[in-house]
């Protein structure tokens, strides 16, 4: 969901927000896209990600209701931490929409229970203290963090921020349940515009192949 002030985003996603808003995208358009996607792909999980103000401006109940009607499964809101959960969390939970929270390198053991309380769907581990699309975390720090998170929760853990290559995705897939890739895809869209579907499909397929082969090797190793 585009927002005029994407404070947690790096240059690629900032530009994407501006392009989208300059093209006239409204919240109604986003739910129309979501509804159409859900009709075409009944089984693919669908998550909206964005900032608090566009999600709450008409009231949390309105937003949760729109999510249900459009077939949205979950919501990631960048700037509503557990301390402000009342702003959005209760409305989503009572509508049966997952509120997907973020854990970061600054989320220590004392903080983690607050993040997990009320989280569902999956836990999004933001592997870099920073903005989207720039640095990447060292694989060892990701492994350590994911192990810590998985010891604290049963919900799946996905890892993102700075993930670009099939090799990185495969390495993360060995320890985590999901890999989040944003800026790299957004850059392909910026580059190819209306013709982006092909290049995006090809790129995502390359990530998926690497992840599948990582999982396959992992299973083979287990059998041996």
């Amino acid at each position: 969901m585009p927002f005029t002030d994407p404070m947690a985003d790096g240059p690629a996603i900032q530009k994407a927000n501006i392009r989208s808003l300059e093209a006239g995208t409204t919240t109604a358009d986003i739910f129309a896209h979501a509804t159409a996607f859900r009709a075409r792909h009944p089984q693919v999980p669908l998550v909206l990600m964005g900032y608090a103000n566009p999600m709450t401006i008409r009231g949390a109940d309105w937003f949760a209701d729109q999510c249900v009607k459009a077939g949205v499964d979950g919501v990631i809101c960048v700037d509503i931490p557990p301390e402000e959960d009342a702003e959005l969390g209760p409305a989503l939970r009572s509508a049966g929409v997952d509120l997907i929270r973020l854990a970061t390198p600054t989320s220590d053991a004392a903080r983690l229970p607050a993040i997990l309380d009320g989280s569902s769907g999956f836990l999004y581990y933001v592997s870099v203290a920073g903005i989207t699309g720039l640095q990447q975390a060292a694989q060892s720090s990701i492994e350590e963090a994911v192990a810590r998170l998985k010891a604290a929760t049963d919900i799946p853990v996905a890892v993102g921020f700075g993930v670009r290559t099939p090799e990185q995705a495969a390495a993360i897939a060995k320890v985590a349940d999901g890999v989040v890739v944003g800026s790299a895809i957004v850059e392909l869209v910026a580059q190819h515009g209306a013709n982006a579907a092909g290049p995006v499909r090809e790129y995502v397929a390359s990530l998926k192949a690497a992840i599948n082969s990582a999982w396959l090797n992992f299973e083979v190793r287990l059998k041996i």
Partner: protein
Amino acid sequence: MNTPDPSLNSFRNQPDERGHFGQFGGRYVAETLMPLVLDLEREYKAAKIDPAFKAQFDDLLEHYVGRPSPLYYAERLTEECRKNAPSGKGAQIWFKRDELNHTGAHKINNCIGQILLAIRMGKTRIIAETGAGQHGVATATVCARFGLPCVIYMGAKDVERQQPNVFRMKLLGAEVVPVTSGANTLKDAMNEALRDWVANVHDTFYIIGTTAGPHPYPELVRDFQSVIGKEARAQMLSRINRLPDLLVAAIGGGSNAIGLFHPFLDDEAVQMLGIEAAGHGLDKEHAASLAGGRPGILHGNKTYLLQDEDGQIAEAHSISAGLDYPGIGPEHSWLKEIGRVRYDSVTDTEALDAFQLLCRTEGIIPALEPSHAIAAVARGEDGSGSDHPGQSVWAWRQGYFHCR
């Protein structure tokens, strides 16, 4: 007329323990920043009751900043404004002259307090946003004073229109980063500062320049700026043995205004008026969030914002770079809702007229920000009308109050 009664119904005990002023304020930040925001809250609570912290803050305000700032009776402006009033009526106008502080604005009060907190927390790098450049200059100043590296984010448009302040920041050793996202003004500078902060949480302290941002910033900025109102209150009592009838202050984020108003909030007889920037007019481009906006979430807090029906933030406009912001400090939103403070607005043109009026009548060249507050008084729409004898006081670059 001495110390306000600390009754249970005090207007001065906000925010609550979660950082909310009624429905406003709060901590709407990315998870990466939350532990740091909580650390800052803990550290500020400890500092508030630490006599050594208070002693160091007071000492620097007195000997480095040059406080207390004078309270000045603007005699010729008073006469000028009385020309339009019935005989024997009209306000007496007083100025709280915070433009005489070191660095030329009230911004330094807050920067002294925040850099002392940064040092207490062991932070070694300072960042800040700035609009007109006054907060940037004040931040660069305290960084030079305490030997800490300093990065200032400033909208590219503001870098252009506020060149002298850019030069001063550089002289003081700060790195000035022009921000080219959005409308290239204060809002965008704040976004960029938040992006820096989230990437450098371990060693960096963000000195926010106004009563905005996540809790505890609106509270601590207000507390550091309250020196304006505390002094003004004592000075009024000592000069004319009474409190003013009306305080007037210009508002962008509103740190000068809340600093002036807060110590008076429980003085029932003292009215208060905050002046927003109406830019080209409230029906055109402006920066009056209370007059033309509605509650929303931006930059860590919930407050009145200029925005469209989808919650996309609008571009503000004011001739004054320091008022060119589509939001307002959350405590002002609360004070508006409960009706303790009245808010009105003044256009670019009215502010420019008031600027000239003050130059000619008092020999004081004001900034464009307080020119908005002066305009509200000059046009006699300050809530007192022009039919009252008495006194009023300006807080310079800040506010103004007004006795009948």
